[in-house]
């Protein structure tokens, strides 16, 4: 007897994808000149043609944002701005299924995750920041905090709508207007969000969305009419942006890469720890900047944890992202798949031992089986470089001090996990770890009230919570 789950595909009928999209500038969709395709990474089907913004389009978007800032948005009371944000949040909830399906089609992530994590969290960010809009004087950022002006925002492909929400909601709540560029490979939910802005009757120009590739991003970063740059993406590009804005008056926040240590002490609750390891690295195919990609196991429980982890990984359901029972979907792009494949090969070449559960991968699309490498040391590339895929490097340690030293021995410092039933040890370890987010007995938990951001090469500034709000205000430290 066996319990095979019959296919349970989410219906695609709820979305209508246009064959071609333009930009959203000054409250209207404007046709683009050049176009590039966006594909469904699970099938390689071309979903739509996306406009590539050049100088003229970016100029127009910045101009529209400046006009909206000067004439409308910065003059409006916080209470009124809050109403628009609440309205957007409610419409996002009402159209949640549409957003979830579109996100899964364009990104390749399982519908379970876009439905249960991405979209609800994105709406939650708008609700949370809507509440701040009329209370900025009470945020502890000075008695009369002021917006910065026009924010240029560049977001990644791993959580397209959620990253949009992290950027747009605080900017608008604080009274800024925005020019946002979604990632080249995942623009569709941002374009649906543009429709939501129209539906909410948001004043024209408050949100402008231009699509394109890195060249469009560079135009935004270097645009003299922009007051603030907010970027989420790779450390490599983050460094380029930091250099570009250094001689200017632009404010900047960067949310970059990571190589998080997930530390398992010998008194950890083992079954939930195994769940946390799986969630830490295989959530969203490992396309997570704060993924728990380095597993540090205390030596005396390493064998037991690995045994249970492998058994658990046998149960991971890899396949059609639109199937409601899928746990791990498609790799977002051919380029990313090549990068993951190359780093995994480096793991083999450097002598680490590779293991994956038996799973049949679809023949079309971009796929990589959930993988763990054991016998990894600090000197391995797979212990140092961000793989940004479903690949876990497993290291061991003997003493708590050794765990901390290994965890901190990285140029990154975005997140870390601690698994222990001993409160004193958890508190001690969390004080030693140099990472912006530390999870205890859980992993990859997000909330709009909680600031998120990195140490060292993982970024500048925080997003979410009161700290995130301060990045969009001229307050105590941002003048």
């Amino acid at each position, binding site marked *: 007897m066996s319990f095979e789950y*019959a*296919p349970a595909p989410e219906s695609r009928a709820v979305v209508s994808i246009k064959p071609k999209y333009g930009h959203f500038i000054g409250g209207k969709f404007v046709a683009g000149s050049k176009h590039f395709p966006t594909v469904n990474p699970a099938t390689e089907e071309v979903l739509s043609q996306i406009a590539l913004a050049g100088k003229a389009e970016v100029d127009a978007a910045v101009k529209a944002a400046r006009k909206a800032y000067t004439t409308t948005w910065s003059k409006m009371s916080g209470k009124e701005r809050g109403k628009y944000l609440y309205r957007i949040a409610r419409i996002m909830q009402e159209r949640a299924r549409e957003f979830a399906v579109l996100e899964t089609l364009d990104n390749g992530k399982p519908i379970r995750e876009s439905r249960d994590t991405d979209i609800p969290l994105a709406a939650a960010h708008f609700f949370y920041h809507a509440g701040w809009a009329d209370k900025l004087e009470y945020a502890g950022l000075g008695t009369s905090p002021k917006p910065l002006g026009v924010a240029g925002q560049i977001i990644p492909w791993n959580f397209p709508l959620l990253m949009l929400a992290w950027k747009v909601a605080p900017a608008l709540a604080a009274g800024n207007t925005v020019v946002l560029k979604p990632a080249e490979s995942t623009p569709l939910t941002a374009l649906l969000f543009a429709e939501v802005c129209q539906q909410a009757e948001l004043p024209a120009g408050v949100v402008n969305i231009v699509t394109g590739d890195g060249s469009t991003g560079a135009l935004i970063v270097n645009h003299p009419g922009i007051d603030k740059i907010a970027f989420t993406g790779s450390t490599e590009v983050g460094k380029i942006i930091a250099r570009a804005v250094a001689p200017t008056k632009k404010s900047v926040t960067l949310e970059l890469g990571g190589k998080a240590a997930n530390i398992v002490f010998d008194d950890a*609750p083992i*079954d*939930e720890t195994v769940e946390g390891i799986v969630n830490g690295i295989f959530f969203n195919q490992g396309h997570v900047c704060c993924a728990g990609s380095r597993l540090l196991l205390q030596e005396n429980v390493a064998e037991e944890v690995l045994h249970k982890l492998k058994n658990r990984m046998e149960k991971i359901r890899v396949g059609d992202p639109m199937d409601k029972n899928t746990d791990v979907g498609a790799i977002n792009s051919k380029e990313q798949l090549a990068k993951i494949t190359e780093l995994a090969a480096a793991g083999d070449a450097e002598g680490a031992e590779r293991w994956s559960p038996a799973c049949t991968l679809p023949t079309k699309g971009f796929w990589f089986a959930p993988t763990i490498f054991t016998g990894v040391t600090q000197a391995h590339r797979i212990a140092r470089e961000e793989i940004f895929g479903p690949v876990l490097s497993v290291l061991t340690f003997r003493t708590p001090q050794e765990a901390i030293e290994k965890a901190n021995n990285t140029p990154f410092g975005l997140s870390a996990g601690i698994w222990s039933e001993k409160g004193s040890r958890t508190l001690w370890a969390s004080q030693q770890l140099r990472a912006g987010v530390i999870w205890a007995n859980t992993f990859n938990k997000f909330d709009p009230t909680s600031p998120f951001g990195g140490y060292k090469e993982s970024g500048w500034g925080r997003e979410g919570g009161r700290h995130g709000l301060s990045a969009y205000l001229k307050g105590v430290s941002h003048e």
Partner: protein
Amino acid sequence: MNFYGLVDGSDASLKSYLNNLSGVDQVGAEARAAMLATRSIKTSSKRWAIDTAITMVDLTTLEGADTPGKVKALCTKAVRPDPTDSTVPSVGAVCVYNDMVSVARTHLDLIGGQHVPVAAVSTAFPSGRASMAVKIQDTQDAIDAGAAEIDMVIDRGAFLAGRYIDVFNEIVQIKQVCGDKAHLKVIFETGELVTYDNVRKASFLAMAAGADFIKTSTGKVAPAATPPVVLVMLEAVRDFYEMTSTRIGVKPAGGIRNTKDAIKQLVLVNETVGPDWLNPKLFRIGASALLNDLLMQRMKMDEGYYSSPQYVTMD
């Protein structure tokens, strides 16, 4: 007795065995159960799950007002849950109070239900508040009357007071009474043990003491068979199998009233301990109202519409 070599029967060895178990993180366990509850079971897999769930039902009546007539009706239903459809399988067992065991056994035999065992609740069910002599006699009576399965309750007072050895010895003694004549299910009343750490401890205690099945609840206390409680028990059973090569069964009971809930339980089994446990020898669901909902969902799958409750028998 060697208790699988895990303990030697002394208080000290039992304490060290139980204290060496890893803890359960409440938030993590509940999150895992909630995630598995999102599994979407449709079409052919739903049909399979419904029929499998029917074979796992311990069709139960545990009321002071039970009558021989009601028990006989229950037995008839247990053998042929849907009198109009012979493809519906029999349930896992009929579960009754001690004094109804012979009524049930006789009637089952009379109507061709020799394959359906009778389970008796025992050891001063549901409270467990009686002397050991009475509990042993209670169990012996049930077996003499034809019970092939004994659902005993543990002494929760002793467990919560940390007198694990008393609980352990009770199970050992009742197991001796059962011998090879009856399967022993040990009921924890997880609603009274409260924490998942306690549930995990009780699971390992009962398995080492000789339980054939571990069971969540009496059905008289809420909360009962919540998905995270069952998850923790299934994990214990899975770990115990790895330690001893012995498969122990699990029986959630109480609060599982509809097909959706039952299918969630099967998903928990499938993705925790694996498909080997997806049969009535290793997984049962203690329930009364559940069977009718399974039958109605089964009819719906065949006919495409929901029937009125009048199309299934009331008991």
